[in-house]
């Protein structure tokens, strides 16, 4: 039980966050403190540092370690067709409207290893829209994007994903979208070709295009109120008039400064539409 004694103090966390900002330009100071502290605490114990000073020294002097740390601080838990009800609404209410555009541009912000971006590509494919769509899938971590670009996921999850897919209103055999090989499922090139994976930091980077749909689920929960507002303005500025914004199951526009610009489309499934300039 000795691990319990090796507790990071709040001051330690603030020092590290300051190092990450000053030295590497990664700004976590407007992230939820409790969540960042918990993530740092986990790495600190998992990597068996004898003291906080040595942890800090490693972060400051080893850029290779930084890559690992970034992966550990940010949450990269995702699955295909997570919250099937959401994907059902996307299929039913949003994509038929996007179908009227000559070119469909979608931004998937905070895509992690890409499972949801592939899910959206599957929906587009089934509605015969994929050929005229581009999904820009971005994340702060280059290393998870590497996984996303390969489109190879553990075969053991496919049963769960297939179940999610069917619950979301999917009518096909889910297995037609991937080739199984030993422990892996490799998703088809038809899907991959329409997704551009790129690094984008929501805290520091700007808008890079205009979209008809922005999906950003379970990212804002890790930000404080000010940063949430800032990012929501970035989304609003990056949406075309009448574009759609989709957030995670426990995220809301309520009480934010962009709320007046949006009208709810599917309240329970957290989809809004931009109504005013």
């Amino acid at each position, binding site marked *: *039980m000795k691990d*319990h*004694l090796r*507790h990071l103090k*709040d001051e330690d966390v603030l020092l590290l966050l300051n190092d990450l900002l000053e030295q590497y330009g990664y700004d976590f100071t407007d992230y*939820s*403190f*409790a*969540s960042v*502290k*918990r*993530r740092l605490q986990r790495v600190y114990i998992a990597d068996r540092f004898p003291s906080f000073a040595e942890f800090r020294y490693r972060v400051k002097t080893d850029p290779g370690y930084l890559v690992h740390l970034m992966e550990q601080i940010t*949450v990269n*838990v995702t699955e295909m067709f997570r919250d099937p009800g959401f994907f059902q609404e996307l299929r039913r209410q949003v994509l038929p409207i996007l179908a009227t555009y000559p070119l469909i541009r979608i931004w998937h912000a905070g895509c992690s290893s890409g499972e949801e971006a592939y899910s959206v590509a599957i929906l587009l494919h089934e509605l015969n829209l994929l050929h005229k769509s581009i999904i820009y899938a971005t994340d702060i971590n280059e290393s998870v994007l590497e996984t996303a670009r390969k489109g190879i996921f553990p075969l053991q999850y496919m049963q769960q994903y297939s179940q999610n897919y069917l619950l979301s209103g999917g009518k096909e055999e889910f297995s037609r979208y991937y080739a199984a090989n030993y422990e892996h499922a490799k998703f088809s090139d038809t899907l991959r070709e329409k997704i551009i994976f790129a690094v984008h930091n929501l805290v520091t980077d700007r808008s890079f295009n205009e979209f008809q749909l922005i999906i950003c689920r*379970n990212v804002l*929960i*890790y930000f404080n*109120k000010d940063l949430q507002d800032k990012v929501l303005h970035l989304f609003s500025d990056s949406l075309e008039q009448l574009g759609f914004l989709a957030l*995670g*199951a*426990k*995220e*809301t526009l309520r009480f934010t400064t962009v709320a007046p610009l949006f009208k709810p489309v599917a309240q329970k499934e957290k989809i809004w539409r931009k109504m005013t300039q």
Partner: protein
Amino acid sequence: MKSLPTLLVIGGSAGSLEVLMQLLPELKMDWPLAMIIVLHRKADSETLLSDLLSTKTCLCVKEAEEKDILLAGCIYVAPADYHLLIEPDGSLTLDASEKVHYSRPSIDVTFISAAEACGDRLYCLLLSGANMDGAEGLQIVHELGGFTAVQDPETAEASFMPKCAISTAKVDKVLNIREMIDFVRDLKE
């Protein structure tokens, strides 16, 4: 800045809902703490646990939303499929990261986070369950000055969780259901 209300966190798994249904009706309108309830359940549970619990108490019960501020006399229920953390300023954070002990919400996660935010102004109570979640958290609650209590395994429908906590953490009190009700009812700010 206004200081946080004293906090009671109750964690439970299999067999703990029945205990809560007995405990909650005993609390009066002026019960002076804030309460968080973390119960294991299926990720896609449609029925809201908070709706069910609110039928049993005159205190305000709500499913915790991100950025909610802890208030005395209110009961916050951790939502299915999210961990619940407490910020130093007493606001709540939801977290969709990896399951802990096959559970999200995890009791350990909330116990530890509460200990860091509340220090000695914290009571944690671990109920019936068939999982080892909660034990590590109780130990940290103890180390950071909080009070730890566990349901008497003899009275628990599933005794593994309270037993596990008693054997690995410093537990201040082991309580049967009647004692637990008295203990919670009589907590003071």
